[in-house]
């Protein structure tokens, strides 16, 4: 043969799957929730989403350029961060604050660590935490889907108690239905449990996520809230828990990689949510619970190392 043959170590074949596929699967999975957000929040949603996505992608490109790296915005990870960031802020957020937040998500949340795969915390949640500290008022100015300003369910619950929450909807059944379909105020991406679950189903089907973290996370919140005498169904369907459980607590980069580790992550995050909602100063808690658990992830990874085949337990 005259041709130069390629020589490299085995294996010589690999899966068709690439980082791009993985990331685009997540984008596809987020689409129902995007559509729901646009349906319920109209122009506000379109504005926040587009500003956030464009900012995320552009700032990643600029950062990669400045760092002398190859520009890899095509891998889709910046788009995901852009969508997720838009999903955790109010639909009324001014465009320039959105821009700052999305930029911070990428730069402080991801690029300073060295880019995709190297970050410790969920980038979108870093952006959210940053804005909450810098523009607390803008970040908590919620509107209902009726366009009128008003607090979120969990806000009402915190301030005025459960009976007041029921007053907002009329009765419990109506509340559940609205929470499930998406007719309530709050962050962009939290609005429709149904839309989120459709996307989650897709990710599970494509094996991009496993059930461990979301099920344990949501289950823990449900059980603990029930034990503490709260309405567990309402608790799990509001405040971004579904979004967080399926799309953020499952982020590959910042969460554990073994099943055992994933279960621990879900459990820890679940306990934190309950603790923050019941005892903390915030009505919510999903974002902080995930960020805190992100910080513990390296430790979890270390202590959940699989036991090697034919070996004794090795904890590193």
């Amino acid at each position, binding site marked *: 043969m005259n041709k130069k043959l390629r020589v490299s170590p085995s*294996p010589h074949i690999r*899966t068709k799957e690439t980082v791009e596929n993985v990331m685009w699967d997540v984008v596809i999975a987020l689409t129902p929730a995007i559509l729901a957000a646009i349906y319920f929040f109209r122009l506000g949603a379109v504005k926040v989403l587009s500003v956030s996505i464009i900012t995320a992608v552009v700032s990643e490109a600029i950062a990669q350029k400045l760092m002398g790296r190859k520009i890899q915005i095509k891998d889709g990870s910046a788009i995901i961060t852009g969508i997720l960031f838009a999903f955790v802020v109010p639909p009324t957020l001014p465009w320039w604050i959105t821009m700052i937040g999305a930029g911070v998500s990428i730069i402080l949340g991801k690029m300073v660590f060295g880019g995709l795969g190297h970050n410790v915390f969920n980038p979108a949640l870093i952006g959210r935490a940053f804005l909450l500290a810098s523009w607390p008022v803008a970040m908590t100015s919620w509107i209902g889907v009726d366009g009128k300003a008003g607090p979120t369910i969990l806000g009402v619950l915190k301030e005025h108690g459960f009976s007041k929450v029921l007053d907002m909807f009329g009765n419990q059944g109506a509340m559940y239905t609205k929470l499930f379909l998406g007719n309530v105020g709050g962050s962009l991406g939290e609005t429709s449990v149904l839309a989120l679950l459709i996307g989650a189903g897709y990710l599970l089907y494509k094996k991009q996520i496993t059930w461990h973290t979301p099920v344990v996370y949501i289950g823990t919140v449900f059980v603990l809230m029930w034990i503490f005498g709260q309405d567990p169904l309402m608790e799990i369907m509001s405040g971004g828990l579904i979004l967080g459980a399926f799309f953020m607590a499952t982020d590959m980069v910042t969460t554990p990689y073994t099943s055992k580790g994933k279960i621990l992550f879900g459990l820890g995050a679940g306990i934190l949510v309950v603790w923050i909602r019941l005892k903390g100063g915030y009505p919510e808690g999903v974002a902080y619970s995930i960020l805190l658990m992100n910080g513990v992830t390296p430790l979890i990874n270390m202590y959940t190392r699989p036991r090697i*085949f034919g070996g004794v337990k090795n904890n590193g």
Partner: protein
Amino acid sequence: MKLFTFKGGIHPPERKELAEDKEIEVFAAPKVVYIPLIQHIGSPLDPLVKVGDEVKVGQKIGDSKGFMSAPVHSSVSGKVLKIVKHPFPVNGYANSVIIENNGEDEWIESKAVDDYTKLSSEELLGIVRENGIVGLGGATFPTHIKLNPPKDKVIDTLVINGAECEPYLNADNRLMIEYGKEFVEGVKIILHILGIKKAVIGIEENKEEAIEKIQNLVANEDGIEVGVLKTKYPQGGEKQLIKALLDRVVPSKKLPSEVGVVVQNVGTAKAIYDAVVKGKPIVERVLTVSGLGVKTPKNLLVRIGTQFKEILESVGIDEEKTEKLIMGGPMMGLAQFTDEVPVIKGTSGILALTEKEMNSYESRSCISCGKCVSVCPMNLMPLMYAKLARFKEWGEMDRYNLMDCIECGSCQFICPSNRPLTEGIKIGKAKLRGMKRK
């Protein structure tokens, strides 16, 4: 039906269909053969012939006094042209005996045994060694050593590896279908050598014809049974096979004999039959020529020492599209830098792979997806290996149980970032071995 399996593993595209129904064809002995003086794991051999000598088929042309060795034999009759370094499919170059075929196919006198049951284990092991038998699955471990486990280990079961879990390859499958009788006889000889009664032949579910054939053949054999395995890679890994078929776990860094098992490959069993009953040393073997770069994929019976080039030319190769030439399977096989390498005892397949089937992809940062961890059949943490190798953290690699890695490649196959995991593993292992020797 109960399907046996293990935990972890992957499902690469099988591509068995390219050649699985092709009957074994005899590939004509070439004009010149290139026989490397090392075709086993262990010490290289000394030539027993000189340039100009006339040799016959089956004549021993290289041997060594080293413990870990197995002799090689001429695969043609003719004249020794040269004894020089020649491209070698395992690594670079090897001292090789180059013989010109006179086309006569004159054989040495056969030393066939009429009734092997009258022979002792030692005598049979001697025959196995003299006939140059090594593990034909690709590992090429000298068989007479493997069949003579440490005396303090009680062996009760022989496991035959008929899984052939590497994609593309059909050599063992075809052997079982076309030479089933001889193969089963070989299994019985091995049982006799080991002095035990029980053998399990593990065959993957996707080889229905072979399963049926062998099941019929062993129906009346006491102690020999077929275990149908789930089709999954690396089902044929020794430790995975033993776990799947017998539910025994070979302890870390230990051999199968630790749990009373000896594992042999299908081709090896057939070779033992040939050696004992027909008095034939290894001068040829069955292999699969396949890959999308090959025009007519086939299963061939090829003389040892035949250059890949001649085989590829005969089946038709698309040079334009072929990017890689592999000896063995796509998961664990060895990439070749030239097609002038010869077929050796361990050549289970020759693959001409195109870009289309390889799915090459530029390596990216690890995204911690954990897929490599979940497929690793040895329950290791493959994601660490590329990283640690890059920072030359050999000691740390050892703590991540690097030496338990069977180099199956599953982790790198599944990695969406195409991390150089196996490269790190190979470098790390070499470094650690070096460190331990010091």
